[in-house]
């Protein structure tokens, strides 16, 4: 039986058309774009085309607003560190409690070395930002606000446009980690107030090891990596040519499939959720159902632990992921679910199903069939299951 891959927020399959586009740049067209000969010129042209393709997906006004990086993490680091340098006299950073570690770990470090004061804004039980706390944290000392476009674990979408406007009122820059949003949501940066945006190739059927930071024209920028003149001096190092070409093709395809992502993929996701919740009691969807990525579903199964669920799913050929402590090697369950105050009874058993355009109705049927016995089996083994009435007293999720 074919495996069912529902872990597309972790990474996607590189689209074969992307691979095909990249291959010549490993073989015939191996030149260095900086070289003064035909080998280089050929590559330079291809890079220019790829940049236009990504520009189109982002709806950016200028193609030189794109700075290629090694991925989303580097883009996040570059954006935040640049802002601290260019926003002279400002040393405060505002972020959310549910950011990716690419942002949170960096900020924890900056705070530890005394480089910045960090305000971490909490979220409600659906993962929505505490707007009041956000507004209060803004001040003339704020150098940059970094809030993700959409959460990787729950899919909850943040009102980035509104947040950018608020940030600008106090003269702060606004950065968004849009790694999960790019390719899944329509984006038009030319009509946006967002100053910087991070994206990653492998989340949209592009290759791994390539990403980009969008830097709005006019926003002062200091490079993270210094050296050669590549990327207009904003990111030194010989271009990852095949990666950039692949990301361009992936962006073109993402634009082509954007409508399908919103309709067919979302419908698959909804059908899976409905099927699971109907068949499996003591389970509920986390996140904000009214404002979510079309491909993401995070279902919490109470009284069992995520890694055990994943191992049994894997045996059935189903790949998903879990915010469970045991899969990450830490002892705390997902910081996202903890920030949302998802009860411990459920936080450890949350499974994230993330779809892509490559998933089918058959995939959904397979998962709906496979999950109930897996959940039942582990619950039978759990010391909490039979005593759940005692455990669950006072807990009644209202948005199941």
């Amino acid at each position, binding site marked *: 039986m074919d495996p069912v891959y529902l872990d597309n927020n972790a990474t996607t399959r590189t689209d074969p058309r992307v691979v095909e586009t990249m291959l010549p740049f490993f073989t015939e067209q191996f030149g260095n774009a900086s070289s003064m000969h035909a080998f280089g010129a050929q590559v330079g042209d291809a890079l220019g085309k790829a940049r236009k393709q990504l520009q189109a997906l982002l709806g950016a006004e200028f193609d030189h607003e794109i700075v290629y990086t090694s991925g989303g993490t580097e883009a996040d680091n570059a954006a935040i560190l640049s802002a601290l340098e260019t926003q002279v006299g400002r040393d405060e950073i505002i972020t959310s409690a549910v950011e990716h570690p690419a942002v949170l770990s960096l900020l924890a470090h900056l705070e530890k070395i005394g480089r910045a004061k960090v305000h971490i804004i909490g979220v409600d039980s659906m993962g929505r930002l505490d707007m009041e706390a956000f507004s209060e944290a803004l001040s003339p000392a704020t150098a940059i606000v970094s809030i993700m476009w959409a959460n990787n674990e729950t899919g909850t979408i943040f009102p980035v446009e509104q947040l950018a406007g608020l940030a600008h009122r106090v003269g702060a820059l606004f950065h968004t980690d849009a790694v999960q949003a790019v390719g899944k949501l329509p984006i038009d940066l030319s009509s946006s107030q967002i100053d910087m945006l991070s994206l990653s190739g492998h989340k949209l059927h592009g290759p791994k090891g390539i990403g980009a930071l969008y830097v709005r024209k006019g926003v002062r920028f200091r490079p993270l990596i210094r050296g050669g003149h590549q990327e207009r001096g904003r990111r030194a190092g010989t271009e990852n040519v095949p990666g950039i070409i692949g990301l361009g093709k992936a962006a073109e395809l993402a634009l082509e499939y954007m409508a399908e992502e919103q309709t067919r993929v979302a419908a698959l996701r909804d059908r899976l959720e409905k099927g699971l919740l109907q068949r499996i009691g003591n389970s509920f969807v986390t996140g904000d159902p009214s404002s979510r990525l079309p491909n993401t579903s995070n279902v919490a199964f109470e*009284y*069992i*632990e*995520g*890694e*055990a669920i994943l*191992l*049994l799913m894997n*045996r059935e050929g189903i790949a998903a992921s879990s915010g*469970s*402590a*045991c*899969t990450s*090697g*830490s*002892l*705390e*369950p997902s910081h996202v679910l903890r920030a949302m105050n998802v009860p*411990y*009874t459920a936080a*450890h058993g949350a499974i994230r199903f993330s779809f892509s355009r490559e998933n089918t109705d058959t995939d959904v049927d397979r998962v709906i069939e496979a999950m109930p016995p897996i959940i039942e089996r582990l619950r*039978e*083994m*759990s*010391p*909490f299951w*039979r005593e759940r009435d005692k*455990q669950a007293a006072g807990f009644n999720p209202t948005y199941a």
Partner: protein
Amino acid sequence: MWEYSEKVKDYFFNPKNSGVLEGADGVGDVGAISCGDALRLMIKVDEPTQTITDARFQTFGCGSAIASSSALTEIIIGKTIDEALRISNQDIADFLGGLPPEKMHCSVMGYEALQAAVANYRGETWVDDHEEGALICKCFGIDEAMIERTVRSNGLTKVEEITNFTKAGGGCSTCAEGIEGVLERVNAEMVAEGVLAPEMAFNPQAYVRPVKEKKVVPLETVLAAAPQPEPEVRPEPAPSPAAMTTLQKIRLIEETIEQIRPSLQRDGGDCELIDVDGNRVMVRLTGACVGCHLSSATIEGVQARLVEAVGVPLLVVPATPMH
């Protein structure tokens, strides 16, 4: 994905003795749903012989938690209470063919559940000695409070000392930064309280994290405490390699291994000669050596000793796969 041994997978996918044990004589509950793992161990004890006749478990937790629980029941059934209490968490891990370092706490949970179940059977209450605090070293389950306590009561100022006293940082060593942080904070507090001279305190700027060296324990060190055979009772001095027959060589190897064994036995281990093939000497480490992460060092020690005794280059290889 974790690298689980085949045995861990087998005990997770086909757990033995899971479920409720009706009329259990002792029940041990450890862990909590908030921690991400919890285990209830139920045992039946034959009163006159003090033998555990049946054991079952219920576990909330990851794959290795379930496998460790099931392994524990298999290990203790048929054992007397006293025998069972001598089982360590390492025994549980060994039974499963090893656990990833980050998952060793699953075996600790099994060990604790057993202590709790026996205490319950005896009408006592088992109190775990965990302090609430952030777990720093996941390999050995050492939390911040324990490191702080150890630093304070022993006046520690070096990361290596913490590893020696608590084991923290002695496994995968990913927590080195965390240990440094605790040490820096506690030492600073001790300086402020006037119980530590400022120049003694841990100074992260001056600190160079030691490069993890390949740990070769010279057998001489291991043997130091053991009664050494007097030189005069040693066998004939090794004949020169050229003059030695294969039979002589094997005898010499046998005799040397016989000399080594008592020191290994003192640590609960043992070593037996399986075969000699040219210059390859196959030995089997048994007992406590099995699964001991120092077993490769032991093998090297045996090799050094053999080469010295026989006077020709020899390659000592374990007859069973090592960890």
